[in-house]
């Protein structure tokens, strides 16, 4: 029988099926952060339960940590209490914990793959919706809530029903200057933020195969913004090459044995999906969101839409609300949108390739005077170190950008990095919801190169027209 990649992952982890259609799904890997776990550990302690397999979990403080002057610790007492609680709970339950002072600390979805904690064929869960990122390694990876965090800690499993499957075929080739972020934003623009609800999306096609692991993670990461539970991609040479030599990847004979298995992790020829969609990569232009939902997106040549021309009443109303919140008039050209801040970071776009792309644009240039803050927040301490070895930090600093320590930072404004009311930001993160980057803040989602270009120009521009910065 032909199987999809999802079928293979499900079938190797599901057991104890019940008549009501649910199964227990065995969990190989559990990532834990400071925000969604304290109440789970507390419940575990109250019931006198121990973690089922503590060695399968990996904890990192990322959401709340400061991105400057780490040596002074966390100023906000509540955030500090959360990070301290994570460390204490992990020590208590015997779970590996990466503290703020550790060189390898960073955003959990950047660090997991970087450390080889994420490996193909695994089920990976985490109390964070962007766990879908890990699907780039042919993992069944999805976000869970705090009660499920407790459930996984206590039972190493979840009782759930099978997801539906959907395949997104990305045909053709991206034009030069376009990246994975543009593909996934264009997809969300096409199918909407509930377009894939209840589904695991497998991404396939030549434009996906041509991407690096970094780019693939960007796409799987934002699957949740299309409503999907999980994003998936088949294993190929790119996957294997990325994993070789990672600290927690197998070695020697075990590596060979694992690789032989990993190479089977792809959908069989002729496998049937519940839904299939095709996207033509060659027609995608640099994407910029204009509203308060990731589906409110258009190309750099586009205009802010006119709500009055939207036939669906509920959508018309949501467009109106979005434009009011964003302080934008209908039919404004995207290029005419002036910005106050620029944020390059987040689990979507803070890997080395993202920083290289942004640095290549700013090299030898200066940010516009009207940009009050342009900041770069690497996804992990190791990404930061690598970037510094390549001199990217100097390119950014010379261009007037701030070069920070790793963490979630202004992606969700839980630490000190946030927008003030009314401020407008070009951001490489994944959500442009009202207040996401600080109460009253206005977010436009773009790729790293587009964010860098906007910092230089002070407004959105097509990075291809601005052209690369100085050569090195």
């Amino acid at each position, binding site marked *: 029988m032909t199987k999809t990649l999802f079928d293979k992952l499900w079938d190797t*982890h599901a*057991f*104890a099926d*019940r*008549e*009501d*259609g*649910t199964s*227990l799904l065995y969990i*190989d890997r559990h990532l834990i952060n400071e925000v*969604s776990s*304290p*109440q789970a550990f*507390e419940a575990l302690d109250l019931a006198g*339960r121990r973690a089922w*397999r503590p*060695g*399968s*979990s990996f904890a990192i403080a990322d959401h709340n940590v400061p991105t400057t002057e780490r040596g002074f610790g966390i100023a*906000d007492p*509540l*955030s500090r209490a*959360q990070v301290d*609680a994570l460390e204490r709970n992990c020590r208590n339950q*015997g779970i590996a914990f990466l503290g703020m002072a550790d060189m390898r600390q960073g955003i959990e979805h950047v660090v997991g793959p970087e450390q080889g904690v994420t*490996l193909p064929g695994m089920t990976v869960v985490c109390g*964070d*919706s962007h766990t879908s990122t890990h699907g780039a390694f042919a993992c069944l990876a999805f976000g*869970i*809530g705090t*009660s*499920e965090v407790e*459930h996984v800690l*206590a*039972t190493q*499993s979840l*009782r759930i029903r099978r997801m539906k499957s959907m395949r997104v075929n990305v045909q053709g080739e991206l034009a030069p200057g376009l990246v994975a972020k543009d593909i996934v934003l264009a997809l969300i623009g096409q199918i909407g933020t*509930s377009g894939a*609800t*209840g589904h695991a999306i497998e991404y396939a096609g030549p434009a996906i195969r041509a991407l690096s692991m970094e780019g693939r993670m960007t796409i799987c990461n934002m699957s949740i913004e299309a*409503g999907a539970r999980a994003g998936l991609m088949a294993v190929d040479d790119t996957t294997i090459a990325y994993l070789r030599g990672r*600290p927690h990847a*197998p070695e020697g004979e075990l590596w060979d*044995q*694992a690789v032989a*298995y990993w190479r089977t992790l792809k959908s069989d020829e002729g496998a049937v999906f519940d839904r299939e969609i095709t996207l033509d990569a060659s027609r995608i232009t640099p994407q910029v969101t204009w509203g308060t*939902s990731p*589906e409110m997106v258009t190309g750099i040549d586009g205009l802010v839409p006119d709500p009055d021309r939207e036939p669906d009443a*509920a959508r018309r*109303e*949501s467009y109106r609300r979005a434009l009011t919140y964003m302080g934008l008039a209908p039919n404004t050209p995207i290029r005419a949108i002036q910005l106050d801040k620029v944020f390059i970071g987040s689990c979507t776009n803070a890997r080395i390739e993202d920083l290289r792309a942004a640095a290549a644009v700013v090299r030898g240039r200066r940010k516009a005077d009207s940009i009050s803050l342009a900041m770069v927040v690497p996804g992990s301490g190791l990404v930061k170190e690598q970037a510094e070895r390549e001199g990217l930090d100097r390119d950014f600093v010379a261009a007037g950008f701030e070069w920070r320590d790793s963490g979630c930072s202004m992606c*969700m*404004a*839980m630490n000190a990095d946030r927008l003030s009311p009314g401020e407008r930001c070009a951001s490489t993160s994944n*959500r442009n*919801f*009202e*207040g*996401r980057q600080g*109460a009253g803040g206005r977010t436009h989602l773009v790729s790293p190169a587009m964010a860098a270009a906007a910092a230089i120009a002070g407004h959105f521009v097509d990075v291809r027209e601005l052209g690369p910065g100085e050569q090195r």
Partner: protein
Amino acid sequence: MTPFQRCEGVVVPLDRLNVDTDQIIPARFLTSISRSGFGPNLFYGWRYLPAGPGGAAPVPNPDFELNEERFAGAPILLTRRNFGCGSSREHAVWALQQQGFRVVIAPTFGDIFYQNSLKNGFLPVVLPEEAVDELFQAARKANALQLVVDLETQTVSAPSAGLRYSFEIDGFSRDCLLRGLDDVALTLTEADAIRAFETRHLAAYPWLARDLNATT
């Protein structure tokens, strides 16, 4: 978990699409290690007027539905597609519950929010778009529309408006809700099956057995 069988009370119509969990409870209120205290911050950005300088106490926004006198203490929320999309924060469910809500009705939900609701004895009811439309119309006509949501019979009804709909929910979740079962305890009754599966699984894929506490 508190059992859920039936809920009768006023419905608050929140006529918005894609209400994300950042609206339900903004991230800055998540720095807590406890499960309580989220109610007053529910829908913070919509519910209160933008703060003036000096951080004075928040002033309720008179234009926000939830702040209307007739909806005080209402246990049922009615809204549009994709409610609870975005982040996995369970705090969204806790905030709704702590504000007094027990049910939310929408045509579709964010998957994680839906699961989180079930784990807390909070009922997410999926009804077709047309049914939701009719309920919105009825709610608009009435000053404060009374609904009866019955999990036993899987129905939502508005007796005064003569409306009645059935809804689907999977048998396992329904059972857990009706009986208020602690699902960790429930799964642990299958501990032997988990152990047996685990032994087979780790033998078949031995690299998965690596302990992440091991230093490299």
